[in-house]
């Protein structure tokens, strides 16, 4: 992808400068269209009535959690396999955004479940796997914070992300197994009985809007991370550099 050619941080920053306004504009436009369609165009559900409209943010948010984790997985491969200089920056920037989307998916899932199940939380297979994913995101963010040196932390987080990626399908399968073991399959399928075009289009537009939102945030977070590393290397140089200016006897660098 052309995106990976901008390996050099400085040229990457210039890329962000150019792309960001357009992407942000696209994102706002998509959200406007998506929200309008999901509230006015999409029909009510014959069983749930209007509460089905929560689906138009719950399902895209859930998709985004998975997409964000796959972006982090690709970045982790970039860090460990292709040694791409910006890969761990992308992985570190994506983690909090992924956690936020997972949180949104959990909250909307819980609020959507209340009218149907009567409780805010039902150990439903899909929601439970999203909860496990949420803990994995928080674990990754914590791992990033334990080491001061970004390169070392990058490698450790990359390994954890890849191991997580391998385990996600297994977790998904085992949670489904665990859920059906204890409970009859839940009556309400979250994706709605049939994907009627009037329901599908708003869903796709909202999903596309969420994706652009993710990339807007991801690019901005990556830019911050590049700046943070630049600050860190400058500070390291400032510490080891001789006293700039004649203030005290010039100390040879230790």
């Amino acid at each position, binding site marked *: 992808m052309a995106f990976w050619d901008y390996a050099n941080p400085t040229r990457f920053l210039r890329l962000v400068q150019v792309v960001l306004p357009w992407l942000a504009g696209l994102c706002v436009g998509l959200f406007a269209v998506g929200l309008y369609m999901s509230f006015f165009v999409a029909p009510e559900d014959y069983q749930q009535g209007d509460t089905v409209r929560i689906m138009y943010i719950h399902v895209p948010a859930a998709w985004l959690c998975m997409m964000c984790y796959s972006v982090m997985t690709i970045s982790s491969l970039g860090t460990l396999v292709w040694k791409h200089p910006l890969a761990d920056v992308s992985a570190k920037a994506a983690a909090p955004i992924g956690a936020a989307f997972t949180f949104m998916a959990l909250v909307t899932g819980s609020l959507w479940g209340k009218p149907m199940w009567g409780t805010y939380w039902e150990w439903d297979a899909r929601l439970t796997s999203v909860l496990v994913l949420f803990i994995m995101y928080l674990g990754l963010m914590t791992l990033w914070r334990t080491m*001061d040196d970004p390169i070392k932390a990058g490698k450790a987080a990359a390994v954890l992300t890849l191991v997580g990626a391998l385990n996600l399908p297994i977790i998904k399968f085992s949670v489904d197994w665990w859920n059906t073991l204890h409970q009859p399959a839940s009556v309400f399928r979250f994706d709605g009985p049939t994907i009627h075009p009037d329901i599908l289009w708003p869903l796709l537009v909202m999903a596309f809007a969420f994706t652009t939102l993710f990339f807007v945030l991801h690019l901005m977070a990556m830019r911050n991370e590049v700046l943070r590393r630049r600050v860190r290397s400058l*500070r*390291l140089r*400032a*510490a*080891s*550099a001789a*006293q*700039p200016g004649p*203030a*005290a*006897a010039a*100390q*040879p*660098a*230790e």
Partner: protein
Amino acid sequence: MFQDLTFSVESGTALVVTGANGIGKSSLLRTLAGLVALTSGTIRLDGADEDKPPHEFAHYFGHQDAVKPALSVLENLGFWQSFAAPAEAESYLAQTMTPIGALDLLGIGHTAHLPTAYLSAGQKRRLSLARLLVTARPIWLMDEPTSALDKASEQQLLDLMDRHLAGGGLIVTATHTKLALARTQALHLEAQPVAASIAEDD
């Protein structure tokens, strides 16, 4: 560890403790610092507040730098300036410096706002030394003070120690290298032949 070891140090002089490695120089300093309990005998400080234990009059400058990498240089020094209680003594003219002043004097003023993790070993050593300058205490217990310091910094350290002695302070330092200090008093620790010490214990 020590058998009937008695010595006294006048204010304004530096007691230079020498002896082979592992003879117990560091343990002597840690005992004076109150970190190692005395089995018998006493440590007395004349001309100072009686009910305060002697180690509250002393700074301990050991091998470990006691700095937190996550905190900035100034935060580390500011913590010790506020946390360690100063101590007066009769003939000791206390001169303390501001944290910034101490850092500038030791040549690491430009790192004041940087996280300590970014400092080199020598700079961390000097930050630990700055701790002695920001809180007034008459006694300096220094274990191998000149290790990890280059020639220029070593001379600067000796000047600081002389300034402390001139102010009526007192230094007990364990070292291998010759320290060119104003007034020094030597204490050489010898390994006592094992047979003799067992004989005494019976």
